[in-house]
């Protein structure tokens, strides 16, 4: 049963959301008997058969006719639903996680379904964030990696119980029962049964304490060709339900007017002009601003346009990008820095280097700009709060919603829906948009369910950006070809103020640095933390977005200084990094690196390699430069992500990471003037379009027997330096600032 299967989706056309028929309302609320069931029903590609309750995380099979374990639910019709503890934001976990279960279960791919797990720890905690599972959340490209053994065991356990049930029913030894493609068989008695036929028997059995996992050599689904995504059909028909699509009886829509400068607060406001707008039902103050609630988005938006707010900007950040960069340069020149990584004596090695490159690299703030603007729905009663959103940090979101509504976290139900992109944006410790919708529901007394929508302007100007960064680098090479490297990083801490904040260096500020990634004997990476009031956040690959760039550009320039081939030079510095070397060699082979490259007419070719989130990615970019325009013609990508559970998803994520990284390299920047953000929509915050995407993006996956590592983010870091290195080959111009501005870079280089 599914929300959308109650009747044809078009049936909802019969009533506006406020006018759902009594009959539809009864059906909806019957389905909503447990928040879990409604959550499942709304969660995209879930189609658990019937309304049999799923026991959530008790570890016990339910007593109904369905088989229900924390991660695996088998319905009488034979469908196997895997509960995803992770948010599907495009990265493919709704396919990768079921694939792991299906493999150990020996299920047929066609019987697999997926649904979002409820917010419940430790059952659904992220084991990479905390081995005890006390925090449910998605991030750091950990979904498949931390679920790998957990879901293999879950699948193998369910399989063992089905086998046991078959053996008992048929009176044969369990050792003679086999399972293949969703069919349980006993060959000598020629008996066969489907999973559905045995689900209720299996559900009555004790859960085995120990199970044997498959030998990876016997995998038939994992790593084998193209397993169709479980969400493609709904996402190709408009049927996928995102938070912005949730329609609850009587629901109202809110937008929030937030301070024009970060750190501003409401001093006073006049609600009357907003309330005079037809369709506006409430205007209420919440911690971050003033919410205007209307019967639809349009009236709420018109109401907000009419609203008059006076802001208290006494504590607001009033500096612009220019002032901030001047301040960052002061910090880079000062002595007040923490040590991120250190080996040997970089200063002494630099003093005896034959050639030294000195460079300041500047990286702008970046907005994530997921296609679905931040949206959340909240229904509040005196003792219960229910949230629908593309939640990325369920445990944190639950706590923040509880705080805003004066309830306990266990009184908050989280329905995690598919997110229309995130790239890190939906994971933050204040749960910004979820806290806002809960605060609006509280301020309006829970009189109606409320949906909060951020407009695109709210999204682009709303903060939580990839931090502005300055890198001051001195790198040298001596007569023996040895590299000395000193880097001063200045950038805000993402972790500051969060429960994960430590006392010393924020590891996300200097991750993927040259000391980590190359065998350098003399290297020093320091970090200075500026005091700035712009909220920052992890942005697809976090610190690697900037650290990979300066490292791979400088290493490439050193290769040139040394008169060595960029690939050979890197290989020489990667002796202790066999995975880097293997990936680099693979990309060089596939890109035809050792064949002559037709230069001239603005053509150039560049390479970069970088490890992030446990995976190593190398990319070769080929560009054509005409005038000041850069066209990326071809990208060859090689990746070692351990076992590639769903290789087609890995390919898609590499393509995606490349496209996302190119947007930032070529155009992406958030600038501020006097504390106000200069961009507000896709006109000035330019992103990649189809005509600008490289026509050829080839992805090659290194065979591996290691456990799976990250895939969602590691494709992003190498592309910008690979392109910069290609442009340098084509034009001789070095980029020291992102996004790339060839005309400006030429001018600076001449001066």
């Amino acid at each position, binding site marked *: 049963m599914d929300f959308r299967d109650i009747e044809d*989706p*078009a049936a909802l*056309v019969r*009533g506006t*959301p406020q006018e759902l028929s009594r009959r539809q309302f009864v059906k909806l609320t019957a389905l909503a008997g447990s928040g879990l069931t409604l959550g499942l029903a709304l969660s995209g590609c879930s189609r658990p058969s019937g309304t049999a309750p799923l026991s959530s995380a008790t570890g016990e099979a339910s007593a109904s006719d369905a088989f229900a374990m924390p991660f695996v639910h088998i319905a009488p019709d034979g469908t196997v639903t895997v509960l995803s503890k992770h948010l599907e*934001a*495009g*990265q*493919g976990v709704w396919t990768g996680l079921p694939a792991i279960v299906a493999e150990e279960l020996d299920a047929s791919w066609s019987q697999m379904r997926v649904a979002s797990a409820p917010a419940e720890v430790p059952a659904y905690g992220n084991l990479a964030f905390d081995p005890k599972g006390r925090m449910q959340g998605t991030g750091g490209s950990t979904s498949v990696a931390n679920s790998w053994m957990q879901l293999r065991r879950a699948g193998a356990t369910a399989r063992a119980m089905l086998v046991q049930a078959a053996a008992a029913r048929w009176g044969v030894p369990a050792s003679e029962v086999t399972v293949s493609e969703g069919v349980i068989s006993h060959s000598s008695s020629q008996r066969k049964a489907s999973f559905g036929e045995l689900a209720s028997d299996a559900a009555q059995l004790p859960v085995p304490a120990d199970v044997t996992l498959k030998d990876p050599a016997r995998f038939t689904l994992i790593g084998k060709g193209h397993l*169709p*995504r479980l*969400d*493609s*059909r*709904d*996402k*190709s*028909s*408009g049927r*996928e*339900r*995102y938070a*912005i*699509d949730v329609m609850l009886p009587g629901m109202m*829509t809110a937008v929030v007017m937030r301070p024009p400068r970060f750190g501003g607060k409401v001093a006073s406001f006049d609600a009357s002009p907003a309330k005079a707008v*037809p*369709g506006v039902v409430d205007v209420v103050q919440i911690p971050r601003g003033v919410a205007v609630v209307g*019967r*639809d*988005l*349009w009236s709420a938006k*018109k109401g907000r346009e009419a609203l008059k707010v006076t802001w208290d900007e006494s504590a607001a950040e009033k500096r612009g990008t220019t002032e901030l960069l001047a301040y960052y340069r002061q910090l880079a020149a000062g002595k007040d820095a923490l040590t991120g990584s250190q080996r040997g004596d970089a200063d002494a090695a630099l003093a005896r280097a034959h050639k030294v490159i000195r460079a300041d690299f500047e990286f702008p703030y970046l907005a994530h700009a*997921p*296609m*679905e*603007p931040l949206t959340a729905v909240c229904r509040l009663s005196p003792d219960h709060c229910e949230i629908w959103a593309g939640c990325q940090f369920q445990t944190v979101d639950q706590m923040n919603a509880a705080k805003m509504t004066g309830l306990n976290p266990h009184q908050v139900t989280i329905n995690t829906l*598919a*997110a*229309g*992109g995130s790239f890190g944006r939906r994971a933050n410790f204040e749960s910004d948009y979820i806290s806002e919708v809960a605060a609006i529901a509280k301020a309006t007394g829970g009189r109606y369910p409320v949906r909060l*929508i951020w407009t*695109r*302007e709210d999204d682009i100007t709303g903060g939580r950006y990839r931090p502005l960064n300055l890198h001051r680098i001195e790198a040298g090479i001596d007569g023996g070809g040895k590299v000395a490297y000193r880097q001063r990083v200045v950038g805000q801490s993402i972790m500051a103020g969060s429960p994960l904040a430590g006392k010393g260096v924020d590891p996300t500020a200097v991750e993927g640095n040259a000391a980590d990634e190359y065998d350098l004997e003399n290297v020093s990476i320091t970090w200075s933390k500026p005091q700035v009031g712009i909220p920052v956040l992890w942005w697809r690959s976090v610190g690697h977005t900037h650290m990979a760039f300066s490292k791979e550009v400088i290493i490439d320039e050193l290769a040139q200084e040394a008169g060595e081939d960029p690939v050979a030079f890197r290989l020489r510095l990667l002796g202790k990094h066999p995975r880097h070397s293997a990936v680099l060699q693979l990309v060089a082979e596939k890109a035809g690196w050792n064949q002559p490259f037709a230069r001239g007419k603005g053509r150039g070719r560049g390479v970069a390699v970088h490890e992030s989130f446990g995976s190593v990615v190398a990319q070769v970019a080929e560009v054509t430069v005409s005038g000041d325009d850069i066209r990326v013609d071809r990208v060859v990508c090689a990746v070692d992500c351990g076992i590639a559970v769903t290789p*087609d998803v890995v390919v*898609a994520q590499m*393509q*995606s990471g490349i*496209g*996302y990284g190119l947007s930032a390299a070529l155009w992406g920047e958030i600038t501020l003037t006097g504390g106000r953000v200069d961009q507000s*929509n*896709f*006109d000035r915050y330019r*992103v*990649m*379009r*189809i*005509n600008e*995407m490289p*026509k050829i*993006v080839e992805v090659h996956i290194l065979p591996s027997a290691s456990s799976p590592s990250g895939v969602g983010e590691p494709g992003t870091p190498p592309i910008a330096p690979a392109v910069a290195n290609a442009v340098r080959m084509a034009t001789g111009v070095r980029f020291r600032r992102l996004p790339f501005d060839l005309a400006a870079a030429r001018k600076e280089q001449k001066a």
Partner: protein
Amino acid sequence: MSIRLTVNGQTRELDVDPDMPLLWALRDHLALTGTKFGCGMSLCGACTVHIDGQPTRSCITPVAAASGRQITTIEGLSTPAARAVQAAWVSLDVPQCGYCQSGQIMSAAALLASKPHPTDADIDGAMAGNICRCATYARIRDAIHQAADALAATPE
């Protein structure tokens, strides 16, 4: 004010502000949520619908301007070209987050309706208005070619 809209072959009366963008009339008043909001300024194409067969950004089209015309949303796609596009999208697993894909499919279906054998340049021209932050562009291009081939192979 009462506005009469014909959406996916059904005619409905709506009591809405005539300046309300068609997008919000479809989504908030007709619960046709397959059409998405992305930018509100005709910059991203997530809101693309067909009006009298032409791909149109519903986020900047006043609902009054759509009255009396044939509006088709992703929920109402039914032509052979549209079905071929959707089938290719599924077979190549084009979507990632999927949020922009309704708009992409509406633009692609309109392209194939007017150009059964689009070149890469035709695809660039017709699809450049549709942003995909997941950068599924290579598969979008492949899927359009695959749909064109499938249509060509299907007897009328």
